[in-house]
């Protein structure tokens, strides 16, 4: 294992924060404390963290409607995110974005996105920017299996490969496009093979295994930073909850879900491997669990008592230099 103890603890903290954040949201939504459309990332933590732990603030990521995990993995402030989801003025988007548009440009987080596939060209543009401005940065697009059927995906990959952009396209294949099984709508077994059409490097990772994602994403990021062009990285993963909070999950068998959740939970697998390697022990991780839970409780309390946005600001921030 080529990760240090500090890196392992950091990776666990990020994954555990994502999981706890999403579990907390189900409670809050069920209790009627939050509105809007909400799509949870629980189950896919190893993908966001395995990639983003190797990025800095000058590297950009573009995300999806299932974007909380990418935000947390990229270092967006959890209290600011919680306040945003409560629709407060103190939210990271001042209450104007919400779950599907949560973002933080200072952290290189180009936003969750309510349009399937729309983040892919945005990150391609960020990669073009990095290349032409010589920032040394890379850009990552996270998107689902469903988005790989959008024109935006194919157009972007073609352009990025043609221009050798420092881009990484991470497809989170969780087996379901909303309520439709992936194999109903995609004739290829592995989405990674679609890279072949664009003479692009590709790889397949076990998206439930942090270490596998970390290794393969690391190679893709290194390739991008070296000027050797983009990679399509397919991570086979699973969403533990439904498409959205409140999804009755009538379309998915309980056995299938149990199998993934009981045997392939990325946090459990991370813990087993990290502890076996002798670099961390259970006490370290339980300490982090406690810190994460405390941090989230504080974030919820702060958000609940934070001021609401001023209705007079409804048409602010539309334009630079408002109010045209």
């Amino acid at each position: 294992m080529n990760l240090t103890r500090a890196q392992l603890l950091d990776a666990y903290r990020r994954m555990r924060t994502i999981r706890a954040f999403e579990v907390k949201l189900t409670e809050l939504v069920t209790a009627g404390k939050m509105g809007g459309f909400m799509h949870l990332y629980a189950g896919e933590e190893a993908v966001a963290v395995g990639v983003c732990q190797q990025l800095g603030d000058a590297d950009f990521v573009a995300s999806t409607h299932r974007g909380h995990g990418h935000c947390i993995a990229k270092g967006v402030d959890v209290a600011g995110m919680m306040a945003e989801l409560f629709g407060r003025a103190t939210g990271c988007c001042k209450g104007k974005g919400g779950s599907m548009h949560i973002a933080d440009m200072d952290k290189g987080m180009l936003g969750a996105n309510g349009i399937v596939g729309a983040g892919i060209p945005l990150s391609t543009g960020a990669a073009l920017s990095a290349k032409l401005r010589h920032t040394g940065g890379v850009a990552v697009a996270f998107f689902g299996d469903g988005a790989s059927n959008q024109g935006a995906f194919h157009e972007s990959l073609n352009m990025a490969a043609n221009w050798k952009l420092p881009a990484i396209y991470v497809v989170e294949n969780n087996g379901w496009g909303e309520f439709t099984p992936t194999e109903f709508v995609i004739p290829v077994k592995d989405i990674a093979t679609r890279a072949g059409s664009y003479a692009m490097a590709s790889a397949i990772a076990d998206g439930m295994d942090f270490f596998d994602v970390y290794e393969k994403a690391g190679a893709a990021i290194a390739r991008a930073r070296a000027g050797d062009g983009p990679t399509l990285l397919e991570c086979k993963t699973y969403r533990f909850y439904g498409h959205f909070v409140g999804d009755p999950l009538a379309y998915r068998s309980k056995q299938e879900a149990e199998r993934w959740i009981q045997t392939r939970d990325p946090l459990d697998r991370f813990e087993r491997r990290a502890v076996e390697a002798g670099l961390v022990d259970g006490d370290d991780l339980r300490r982090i669990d406690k810190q994460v839970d405390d941090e989230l409780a504080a974030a919820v309390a702060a958000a609940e008592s934070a001021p609401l946005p001023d209705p007079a600001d409804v048409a602010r921030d539309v334009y630079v230099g408002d109010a045209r």
Partner: protein
Amino acid sequence: MTAKPRTLLFGQAINEALRIAMESDPDVIVLGEDVAGGGARAGDDVDEMGGVLGTTRGLVKAFPDRVLDTPISEMGLLGTAVGAAATGLRPVAELMFIDFLGTCLDPLLNQAAKLRYMFGGKARVPLTVRTVTGAGMQAAAQHSQSLYWMTAGIPGLETVIPATPHDAKGLLLAAIRDDNPVIFCEPKSLLFTAGEVPEGDYEVPIGKARLVREGNDVSLIGMGATVRMCEQAAAQLATEGISAEVLDLRSLAPLDEEAILATLEKTGSVVVVDEATPRCGIASDVAALCVDRGFDFLNAPVRRVTAPHAPVPFSKVLEQAYMPSAERIVATVRELRA
């Protein structure tokens, strides 16, 4: 500075603005289909096309790394331009004809227009989209539309449409340097018209209409290709003893409401002339403004001279019947005063 007047074609004025913008800011890039257009490869001594209408000719030789031919992928190229704009570049993307919005609306509608707002004011998208609009080249239904009413109706976007080579250059420089996404419309029927264009660097402010001709009896309000029709109509009306004022909107979003109300207050009568279709458009918007905020100034109904609610036809005679004209404007004014 004293600028020396010269005569340039509308397209040449745009080319000059692009060159000045690229010289003055290394973050300005030009990307689109055929914007270089071949001829740029090392060792080739052939000329490049510089876009389907030649507007960007010569730029790739001056800025070889910053003029990017894209594949025919409007969604990909516009989305990439939005992402590049949000992360430090100042792209000028070309959407060859505004009709092609049908293939690529999302990057403008849901991304460029909304990132700043959705992110609580913490993003800026200094993107310019140059696009050719309007009828007049027998390009028919899918290459002749005036869809600027669509972009003008989207909060977060600005939309401008120059009527002269002078304004084409100045408005494009202003658009490129504006920190908001701007849709820059280039009316097809004007691209090869000539006019005085000062040398050097100047900007025409976005959001300011231009008073083209002063008059007292009626206000003719045009934009893009219809400004010239308004001027011709005003000249004809003058021979009939009717004094028409002509206002060129130049900027559709933001709209210079004060200039519209000022000319209405002066003449008491407005005819809006728009090359676009009549429903939900700029002409209707201006008419609504006149009634809403200028009702007390009105001494006649507000009239709109527009294209019919129909696709743009091919045959020359049909295309001419489709477009507004000085004759139709004159007839409308006569009718108002009858």
